[in-house]
């Protein structure tokens, strides 16, 4: 028999069942030399049954359960840490999404680039603004001068209102406004010029110009306006021109009365 070794062990261990078992028994009956071998094996195999195994001590159980509880604690600590880590990761997860990450990256890059370029730019911009505002003033000045020379009263009015927008007024503008005040054919334009010049009464040239303008005004409304202004300014130099107006025949009687009362208020 080719697989006698295997068959014998299978038989002894009880794994050989049914027909195979019977076939093996028949084989042994037919082959005395194998039967002898098998009996020797069987005898030794059965002798091994006589060995007994002692019981493990209680100490083994104690050591095992101590180890298990330590392991359980370690595991609990670890899972606590893992839970913390997991919640932290879940908090971070939206941030870690690629689209958002790219967005954040771009934002940071933009901020960084902006911060890096900002100081130089600001200085440049300040300079540019100064230059720009200087240029604007110049253009506006030219615009005012041009507008004041226009034949249309509307445009001249626009010119006067443009002149109001200057922070610091130029002598040329003052001159142009005084010119308008004395010579403009339209009374509204002249009134607007008075109003515009009122802003610069601290300037002696303006004050002088206004005083000298009194005698040149033929319109009653202009005379009264200037009279009010002079009273407000308490400009004593204006007394003489007013007296001169009063002596003029063409001046309206009521205006004369107004001028007289103005002179009295100034004195």
């Amino acid at each position, binding site marked *: 028999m080719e697989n006698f070794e295997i068959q014998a062990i299978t038989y002894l261990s009880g794994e050989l069942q049914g027909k195979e078992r019977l076939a093996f028994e028949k084989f042994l009956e037919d082959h005395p030399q194998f039967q002898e071998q098998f009996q020797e094996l069987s005898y030794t195999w059965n002798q091994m049954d006589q060995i007994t*195994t002692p019981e*493990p*001590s209680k100490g083994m159980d104690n050591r095992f359960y101590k180890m298990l509880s330590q392991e359980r604690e370690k595991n609990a600590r670890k899972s606590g840490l893992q839970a913390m880590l997991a919640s932290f990761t879940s908090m971070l997860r939206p941030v870690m999404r690629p689209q958002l990450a790219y967005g954040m990256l771009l934002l940071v890059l933009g901020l960084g680039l902006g911060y890096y370029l900002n100081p130089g730019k600001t200085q440049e911009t300040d300079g540019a603004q100064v230059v720009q505002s200087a240029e604007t003033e110049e253009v506006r000045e030219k615009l005012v001068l041009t507008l004041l020379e226009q034949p249309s009263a509307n445009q001249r009015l626009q010119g006067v209102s443009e002149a109001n927008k200057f922070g610091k007024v130029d002598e040329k503008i003052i001159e142009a406004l005084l010119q308008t005040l004395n010579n403009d054919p339209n009374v509204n334009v002249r009134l607007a010029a008075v109003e515009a010049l009122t802003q610069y009464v601290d300037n002696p040239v303006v004050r002088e110009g206004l005083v000298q303008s009194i005698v040149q005004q033929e319109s009653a409304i202009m005379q009264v306006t200037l009279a009010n202004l002079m009273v407000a300014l308490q400009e004593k130099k204006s007394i003489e021109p007013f007296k001169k107006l009063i002596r003029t025949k063409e001046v309206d009687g009521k205006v004369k009365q107004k001028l007289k009362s103005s002179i009295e208020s100034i004195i």
Partner: protein
Amino acid sequence: MQALTDNALMLKVKSGDMDKMGLLYERHKKRLFGFFYHMNGNASLSEDLVQNVFVRILKYKHTFTGQGSFSAWMFRTARNVNYDHFRKHSKECRPTEISTLEYRLQDADAGSVMDYDDTVSLVNRALQRLSPEKREVLILSKYKAMKYSEIGSVLGCSEGAAKVKAHRAIKDLRTIFLQMENS
């Protein structure tokens, strides 16, 4: 059924349910203790090695796939634990390996005892004289009631090869018996 249940329990341990380890321990502690005891004849050492097996099972629980039987996996671990122990203590192990058994058996021999005890001591001593490789295959087969397909899995060989090993081990054991009886 038992193996299936063992596998289910071990898979639960793997997923973090450590309490199931206690159940597995209760089921297999005697088998494992017997395996080590017959391998080295030292009860106290065997208890330590049983402990080592369960420590290792916990440490490597992630490697348990549930594909083979839990018993085979556990005895494979036990075999490695035994091998590692004797490799580490190779110099001192030889005398201690059989110390408990030998001393007890020698004591038994010293007193005039019954034939039964004589036979038991003879079998024990003969078994201890077998090479560890041959001893382990006989222990797994005879005392642990393992099928040869499982034994093959523990030893890392085919079922047939495991049977051939067992056959040769029994023959060697018989030779040792005869030598001891004649001496």
